[in-house]
């Protein structure tokens, strides 16, 4: 036998089970969360080795300061038009979310997921990417489609699974897909998009293309094996891909500690693979833009992958099936120290004299009208469960390129049965 250590006096082991700081009834107080000042983080050259800026994985890239000024080396120096477009996309996304959430509550569809409070993450990135870069999103990046100008009414048709739904009623609401808009088909299975994005990027590189890919998942989803497989492949082949981890603090009812946040940041995962890692204020649209732009430049110049942790907060429930007050302090969203991304960009535009409260209010009104109008349009094509769905026989199409005999047989059987039953 091996050398026995004397363990008689050893204290017993103990299992550490993480616990969030606030539960229902607690007052949320994030005043001790370390928020570095805007502009303080250095911006390495995009040609620098990933090993030369590990500290960025533990910091927080921030551009917008407390006075609404864009400061420091990460300021992307966007012109005012671009910033207004950014603001508008964020506000439109929020208006869209509000409207569709309500539509679900009204029974017009089965399910909805908002991105409230996280709009900067998808919209900042979408603006920094080229329009033909390929996105592999999770279910909370509707902002990408909205930024890229995908028709609102088409999104709603998908949500309603109606007869104009481009996905033919086959997918859960919000599981969009649009090759044309560089938006990969959303999956219900978490993190599966991560290695897929790497594969797309590897293909692009193998072909000598210039397009890159970007992918998103929540901090909770980083625990999946797919995440690791993706980062491993990406580091091995230096794939031109941007990994975005949207750390919105919660995964349904589980706080980020159950994905490992007590021990280190999610950006630090990058260091483990020797790839570039950045941690960004996810509620600062300019910081997200700048980080994405930097990562995209690395990717386009064959410097390989970058992982960006977007430090943000899921301001509402996980989905329409969720009530967050059952597991977290109701005060958390308001106490969140990084503020609201829309308000912050708006205040910046006002501070630099390129926007004002009146224009903002008018825009909010206009966007509310816009989504209402689009909704009316969409509802002409039907809402879920009210008859105006795809034809029943379409269910058997698209399983394969050509319908094999056994599906044809099942299709016929269904049609016969429905006919016999007078349906």
């Amino acid at each position: 036998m091996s050398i026995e250590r004397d363990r008689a006096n050893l204290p017993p082991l103990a299992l550490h089970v993480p616990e969030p700081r606030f539960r229902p009834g607690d007052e949320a107080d994030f005043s001790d969360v370390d928020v570095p000042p805007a502009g303080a983080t250095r911006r390495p050259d995009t040609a620098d080795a990933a090993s030369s800026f590990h500290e960025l994985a533990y910091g927080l890239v921030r551009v917008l300061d407390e006075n609404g000024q864009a400061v420091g080396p990460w300021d992307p120096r966007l012109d005012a038009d671009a910033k207004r477009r950014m603001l508008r996309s964020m506000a439109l996304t929020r208006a869209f979310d509000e409207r569709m959430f309500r539509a679900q509550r009204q029974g017009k569809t089965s399910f909805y997921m908002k991105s409230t409070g996280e709009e900067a993450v998808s919209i900042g990135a979408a603006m920094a990417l080229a329009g033909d870069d390929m996105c592999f999103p999770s279910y909370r990046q509707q902002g990408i489609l909205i930024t890229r100008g995908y028709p609102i009414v088409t999104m709603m048709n998908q949500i309603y699974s109606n007869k104009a739904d481009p996905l033919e009623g086959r997918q859960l609401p919000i599981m969009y897909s649009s090759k044309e808009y560089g938006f990969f088909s959303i999956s219900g299975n978490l993190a599966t998009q991560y290695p897929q994005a790497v594969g797309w990027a590897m293909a692009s590189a193998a072909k000598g293309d210039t397009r890159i890919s970007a992918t998103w998942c929540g901090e909770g989803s980083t625990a999946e094996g797919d995440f690791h497989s993706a980062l491993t492949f990406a580091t091995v082949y230096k794939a031109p891909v941007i990994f975005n981890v949207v750390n919105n603090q919660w995964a349904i009812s589980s706080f980020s500690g159950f994905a490992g946040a007590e021990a280190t940041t999610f950006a630090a995962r990058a260091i483990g693979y020797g790839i570039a890692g950045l941690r960004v204020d996810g509620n600062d649209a300019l910081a997200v833009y700048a980080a994405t732009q930097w990562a995209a430049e690395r990717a386009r110049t064959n410097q390989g992958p970058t992982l960006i942790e977007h430090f943000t907060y899921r301001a509402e429930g996980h989905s329409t099936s969720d009530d967050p007050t059952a597991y977290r302090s109701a005060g958390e969203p308001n106490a969140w120290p990084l503020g609201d991304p829309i308000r912050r960009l708006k205040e910046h535009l006002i501070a630099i004299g390129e926007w004002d409260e009146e224009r903002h209010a008018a825009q909010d009104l206009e966007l509310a009208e816009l989504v209402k109008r689009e909704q009316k349009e969409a509802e002409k094509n039907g809402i879920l469960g009210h008859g105006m769905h795809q034809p029943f026989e379409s269910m058997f199409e698209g399983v394969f390129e050509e319908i094999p005999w056994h599906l044809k047989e099942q299709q016929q059987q269904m049609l016969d049965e429905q006919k016999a039953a007078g349906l």
Partner: protein
Amino acid sequence: MSDTIHMNMIQAINSAMDVMMERDPNVIVMGEDVGYFGGVFRATAGLQAKYGKGRAFDTPITEIGIMGVAIGMGAYGLRPVPEIQFADYIYPALDQLVSEAARLRYRSAADFTAPITIRSPYGGGIFGGQTHSQSPEGIFTHVSGMKTVIPSTPYDAKGLLIAAIEDNDPVLFLEPKRIYNGPFHGHYDRPAKTWADHPGAQVPEGHYRVELGKAAVVRPGEAVTILCYGTMVHVVANTVEEMGVDAEIVDLRTLVPLDIETIEASVKKTGRCMIVHEATRTSGFGAELSAQVQERCFYHLEAPIERVTGFDTPYPHSLEWAYFPGPVRIGTALKKILKD
């Protein structure tokens, strides 16, 4: 047996875990959102408060990890009851379940075992779309070394879950989520029923077991044997009643090991056999049932065995009720088999 009270299926499942955690300090529950919150379907509600964070806890979102960790805990001597949030998400854990948990006793000649009960809600009928509606039981019935159990009433759910937790081999315990709150009659367009007046919702408060591997004849009959399980037991029973057919309905309850005696006796009596499940048709568990019935009752069969199943497509969101093997499809098949 202890006092009987009314429970819906979620309460019965919760009670099974509660009873077992109370009796056996080695029983622990874990999974995504099962701790403080008590599970997205509330099946583990209250267990963390009662037994502490060391025995009922949330996990990282990695089904590989949940299953692998459960195996290690089982090897240590615990009796883990991991939850997979939806059966559609069991695939990432498949290798750990199939190559490890199910093979551990055999490959180590019982040196190590995996006394694990994996709970997971399955099946459609809740507009869950492709990835919250699947019925993957067929896959697991093909794997040697593990058992697959599917209850259809609160009473069975509790008794079977207790038996599963007490079993020294890995058991996949699939919960038909469509009937968590009430026995589904199959008519999506009529008011939902609750468990209120269902006899299977009278559940003893304490410990009892429903033995694994035993089917239940939920309706005796002479005209045809209908093999089913989970949600389909209720849809079938309702259809049979509506049609006034004298069918014998067998609720399998355990798929592996199968209660072949009950099946064989029934089919030999009725001479006809119909199989109903929600899972896709090709290579579904209905195929195995059909093959076995045919092998054992060939000379008693008066008509071809019929399968009524989900179609060989993903579960389509908006056409869910066209996909679901409901009263129309079951009825058509019944008429056919009785005529044949």
